[in-house]
């Protein structure tokens, strides 16, 4: 059933983009994941379909290189017919796709201790997020050189947008734009791991629970870890408070970074605040459902599922100058004053960059 929903999306795209290169992204994976998973993607995907058709010309240049590494393709007869000269490449892709399919079906793939399925993420989940990233939010990335090519680092970002799409977009940004194609391991709220389907996807995308143990373990393994210390306070704040950073938890992320001696990279995300302008919060309903807030936007829940389509804002993600922590003595992680100072420093830097980016921004949507 879920298949039927996705196929037209692809057909649209390949028809539109046939001149350049058919979008053969409709991977084995889009089919292989459960229906519910696709339900989550379906809303943005449906919206992408529209925007992809409308905005065909401008983003193509940026899109082609990104497509090169998407080789999950399964045989796509339409594409094969349209591009006969691409035969050899196509065959290779098909062979790779089938090898991938074979590995997946027989369970011969690896996941790490956190349940991170690198293959599935790279081949399938990323290619589902990429259209949203490139076409829908047209994310512009700055300061990628601030992320080290190897070794642990803690990326600290602002959090907004009612649904944590900003984290996912940051993950795509780091993976696609970083020269070393690094994988960002996000720290997520415990609610994520309580919800069915969501927890499974989050684990496979490499996310883990936002706790000091997990963060330190990942940083100790030399991973790039992303955290949004505002948590629910940031993501569930009303529209009127947009781009005002909330309190940064208790600054646990700073002591974690200090203990591991990894740099803290402040990251400012502009655009996510406006995707779901939260004008109200049905607190009683939220309590009944056991979620921290129940957003009321101009469209949600009035328009039903259609109201859950995010507004197509233009995003900018800027990674700032790293704040080094390896110069501090080991006992510094126990010093609350230093913790507060560093937390404030990170917070200030993110807030400052947010204001700067907002001044530069021409409009919310372009």
């Amino acid at each position, binding site marked *: 059933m879920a298949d039927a929903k996705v196929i037209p999306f692809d057909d649209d795209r390949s028809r539109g983009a046939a001149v350049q290169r058919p979008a053969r992204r409709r991977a084995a994976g889009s089919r292989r994941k459960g229906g519910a998973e696709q339900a989550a993607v379906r809303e943005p995907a449906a919206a992408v379909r529209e925007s992809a058709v409308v905005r065909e010309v401008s983003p193509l240049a940026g899109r082609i290189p990104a497509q090169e590494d998407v080789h999950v393709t399964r045989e796509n007869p339409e594409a094969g017919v349209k591009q006969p000269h691409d035969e050899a490449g196509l065959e290779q892709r098909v062979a790779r796709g089938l090898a991938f399919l074979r590995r997946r079906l027989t369970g011969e793939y690896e*996941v*790490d*201790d956190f*349940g991170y399925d690198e293959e599935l993420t790279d081949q399938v989940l990323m290619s589902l997020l990429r259209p949203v990233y490139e076409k829908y939010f047209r994310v512009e990335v700055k300061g990628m050189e601030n992320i080290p090519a190897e070794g642990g680092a803690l990326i600290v970002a602002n959090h907004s947008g009612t649904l944590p799409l900003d984290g996912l977009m940051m993950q795509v940004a780091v993976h696609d734009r970083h020269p070393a194609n690094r994988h960002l391991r996000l720290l997520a709220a*415990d609610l994520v791991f309580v*919800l*069915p*389907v969501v927890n499974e996807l989050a684990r*496979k995308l490499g996310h883990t629970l936002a706790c000091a143990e*997990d963060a330190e373990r990942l940083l100790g393994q030399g991973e790039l870890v992303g955290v949004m210390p505002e948590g629910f306070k940031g993501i569930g704040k009303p529209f009127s408070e947009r781009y005002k950073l909330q309190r940064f938890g208790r600054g646990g992320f700073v002591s974690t970074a200090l203990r591991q001696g990894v740099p803290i990279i402040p990251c400012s995300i502009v655009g996510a605040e406006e995707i779901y302008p939260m004008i109200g919060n049905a607190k009683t309903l939220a309590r009944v459902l056991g979620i921290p807030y129940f957003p009321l936007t101009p469209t949600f829940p009035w328009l039903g599922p259609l109201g859950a389509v995010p507004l197509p804002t233009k995003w900018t993600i800027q990674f700032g100058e790293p704040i080094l922590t390896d110069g501090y003595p080991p006992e510094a992680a126990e010093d609350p004053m230093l913790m507060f100072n560093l937390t404030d420093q990170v917070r200030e830097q993110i807030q400052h960059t947010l204001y700067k980016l907002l001044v530069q921004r021409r409009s919310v949507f372009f």
Partner: protein
Amino acid sequence: MLVTGVARQLGGRFVRRIQRDPEVDRVVAVDAVPPEHHLGGADFIQTDIRQPTIARVLAESGADTVVHMDVTGTPLGSGSRTTVKETNVIGTMQLLGACQKSPNVKRLVIKSSTNVYGSAPKDPAVFTETTPPKSLPSGGFAKDTVEVEGYVRGFARRRPDVAVCVLRFANILGPTADSPLASYFSLPVLPTVFGYDPRLQFVHEDDVIEVLRIASHEPERGTLNSGTFNIAGDGVLLLSQCSRRLGRPTVPLLLPAVTWAGSLVRTLGMSDFSPEQIRLLTHGRVVETVQMRETLGFRPKYTTAATFADFARAQVPGLLPPQVVAAAVDRIAALPALSGGRASTRTPTQNPTQSAN
């Protein structure tokens, strides 16, 4: 050396293995029921460790090492859950009481389980030996192990001269494993919890025997074998991977339905699908094994995946054996005109994926 719980396969194997070690003069094997397998040259004494007679047995044998393997989740033969719990908890108390009175005992090894960590969404992804569980197990075998470990800690405080080693085993699998998880994996169709894909870790029976052996002897140079250790094979398998490697399709059910069905099956006495088993198959559990490697100096021969492969070999093939699925994909790859092969691609591939997730 005194070994409890020898009527089980694992206990029997351990007794047979340990007698080949030159350091071991005599093995006294204890259990409430006579074992069906032979115990090599060990002396079997039929006694219930819930009874104070265990103290006499221990005193008469003059054992300097006690290996307590009678902490288990399932009854042996026809026993009720109450009996298992009593053997686990009261039996451990009696045995510890006996050890405390015995001046000869120098070393105590307890077979525990990683069940003590519970399994909850709010737990860190990887448990170390010091991680406190976020939600204490509310009942069943997991609670037994928590209580057993509590008594063992008390004993270790009272008898600091005794080297106490608590081994927390991950799920034990192998060709002859008879754990609840092994019987779960032998179902023709695996019921799973919809929307969850738990991370599982296994440890091979051979490795269990080996690590018990290491723990019950004098420590090698540079290692220490008293304390608490997580024992698990390297790596992690997801339940979906397990089902695919076994070739058994899964049936995702909603969590409330699984809980309800589990309690129904339990009430009917058909199988012991306990709540903690369901929690494990919902949220999964992964433990860190750095202590096992660096302090205990034990390197498991089998990784989690290898353990599972060894277990799967001993199982009857499932409905969708991975070889058949792989061959189907290969056949498609061999098709000259792939566009013609499209229709046939769908049939073999769609079913397992849909069910496996």
